[in-house]
């Protein structure tokens, strides 16, 4: 394997991982954009999505795509419930209160999953739904069918999201609410409905990311949302939290960075580097790569 081949292969590794981060980061960023809340339970929505997909396939005998769709719908509803029951009552409270609630929800979901007899503590193997196929891009550089599928679905969902946000009435409402909630309400926009819709959208993307992650790495376990959840948060901050294209770029960038760190022989430092990136970004450019420096509204 030549150096070029290695670099290309590691780039593919990084992009596959990054596309999952990007899908999750979108949920963080949209929710932040609209109610200025960092929804730390997002990683657990990802985990629950993966499990719904897993059970739809193993217990209900569904095919992969219907299973992923089921997971997305389930998590969309979960997202709406989460917002209605836990975050909405705190909308006018101090922002730290909502943040703490998010951390609490994350722990709650994780421990409920742990206690649930179907999930429990031990890892489960995600079924190999598509027979493994490897495509040779060049000598020693290959990409598996699962990865191509992951990339394709991720790109499709991102385009669909762009379409929803920029070309539909609901998307327009989302953008309006994120700019100025009160003005939006005065213009006749149903703010509650818009916020619910944002949660549903973000959570369903997390569910899709969860199922794709499980398919690629072959395992589902109750803790699987923790680290990817935090990494997606880093990705969202890297790109500029609240900015949708920023989340996509941030996710890919983080995935590739992690691969690069491992590729250079520092596999034990990949998580450390990811979080160091967060700290450095917050020090150097808190608004992220795509952020504009706007003065804080008082």
């Amino acid at each position, binding site marked *: 394997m030549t150096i070029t081949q*290695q670099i290309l292969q590691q780039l593919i590794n990084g992009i596959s991982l990054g596309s999952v981060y990007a899908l999750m980061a979108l949920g963080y960023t949209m929710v932040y954009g609209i109610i200025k809340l960092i929804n730390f339970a997002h990683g657990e929505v990802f985990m629950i999505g993966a499990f719904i997909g897993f059970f739809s396939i193993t217990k209900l005998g569904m095919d992969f795509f219907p299973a992923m769709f089921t997971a997305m719908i389930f998590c969309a509803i979960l997202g709406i419930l989460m917002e209605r029951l836990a975050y909405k009552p705190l909308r006018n409270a101090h922002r730290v209160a909502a943040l703490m609630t998010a951390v609490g929800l994350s722990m709650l979901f994780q421990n409920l999953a742990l206690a649930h007899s179907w999930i429990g503590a031990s890892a489960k*193997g995600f079924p190999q739904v598509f027979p493994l196929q490897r495509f040779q891009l060049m000598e020693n550089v290959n990409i598996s069918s699962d990865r191509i599928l992951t990339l394709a679905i991720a790109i499709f969902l991102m385009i669909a999201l762009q379409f929803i946000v920029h070309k539909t009435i609901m998307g327009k409402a989302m953008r309006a609410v994120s700019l100025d909630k009160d003005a939006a309400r005065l213009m006749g926009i149903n703010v509650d409905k818009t916020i619910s819709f944002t949660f549903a959208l973000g959570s369903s993307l997390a569910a899709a990311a969860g199922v794709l992650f499980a398919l690629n790495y072959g395992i589902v376990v109750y803790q699987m949302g923790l680290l990817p959840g935090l990494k997606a948060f880093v990705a969202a901050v890297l790109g500029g939290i609240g900015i949708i294209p920023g989340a996509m770029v941030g996710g890919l960038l983080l995935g590739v960075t992690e691969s690069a760190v491992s590729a250079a022989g520092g596999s034990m430092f990949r998580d450390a580097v990811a979080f160091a990136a967060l700290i450095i970004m917050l020090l150097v450019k808190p608004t992220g790569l795509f952020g504009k420096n706007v003065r804080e509204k008082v």
Partner: protein
Amino acid sequence: MKRKLSLVLVVTMVLSLALTGCGGNQPQAPAAPAAPEEIKIGSVFPVTGAIATFGQSSLNGTQLAFEEINNAGGVLGGRKLVLINEDNQSKTEETATAFQKLITQDEVSAILGSVASSHSLAGAPIAQAAGIPMLSPTSTNPRVTEVGDFIFRACFIDPFQGQVMAKFALETLGVTTAAMLVEQDSDYSKGLAAYFKKAFEAGGGTIVAEEGYKSTDTDFSAILTRVKAANPAVVFVPAYYGTVGPILRQAQAAEIDAVFLGGDGWDSDKLFELAGDAANGGFFSNHYSPDAGTPEVEAFLAAYQAKFNAVPDALAALAYDAAYMLAQAIEEAGSVEGVAIRDALAAINFTGVSGSVTFDENRNPVKSAVIIEIRDGKQVYKATVNP
């Protein structure tokens, strides 16, 4: 006002500390002389958590052994053995608590466990300090019994397992290049890797790549690409099935042609569920094989299958052996006293399912290992390797 409140809090905390301290120091110890009929034996096996199947198998093996011993009249002239298992949830910190509880609260005579080396290392100092003999069925890291003279094990140790696999790679597979994937937060994994490397290099082989990961990692594609670039003939993955499964599966997707080797951490049916057909063609060292064919193995197989309707794995076999070994030691000691049991264990000459056992001066058993091949999603007996 605030200051007063905090003062009250501090006083309460100090008091509660002092009180619990006293509570621990004066259990109803003097009441003991009227010797109870039953002998309490503690065990610390994880029946939930990352290595739950290991814990369950160990518990099954122990329960079967205790049942058989009790049905045959118990030990020390009719005294029954009672097992108290504490689930440490596959966590190191819970293990220490479990040991504390068994020793101070349940007042057990000896402890069987724990399963993973890192867990046993957390419990051993507590047992040693209390003078309670501890016999781990399966903790293979050398440091476990180095904790003190009350700590024993029923299995061979990592140096031996690492050496066996290195010897197997060099002599049976006839290869000279190897890569290692090492779980950096596992004593077990690091121990096996270190001794594999030593033996493999001493035998003329070269370690062409050595990659680290953490037990919480799920994406191994980057380090596998590095392994592939180094082009080894074998890849040694000394870890537990929970991480070995995804590694094997991702290695297959990455098109690594090398033969994968491992240790007894591979021994679980879950490996096939996690790795799918990617597990085929791998070899690992183990303590026992149901296909070995000795009379002890046959009898054990029949009894285990009758009780649990499953084929016992090595963990069940070792736990079963450990339970019998402890019972024999208590019988030979003629007492349930810690020091007496310790001395009897140290001098024991025991034959069980996993072979004959005597202890060396470090309380490590001298016994043989088997190599298991994974073929068509099944474990197949390959060879027995003597020390």
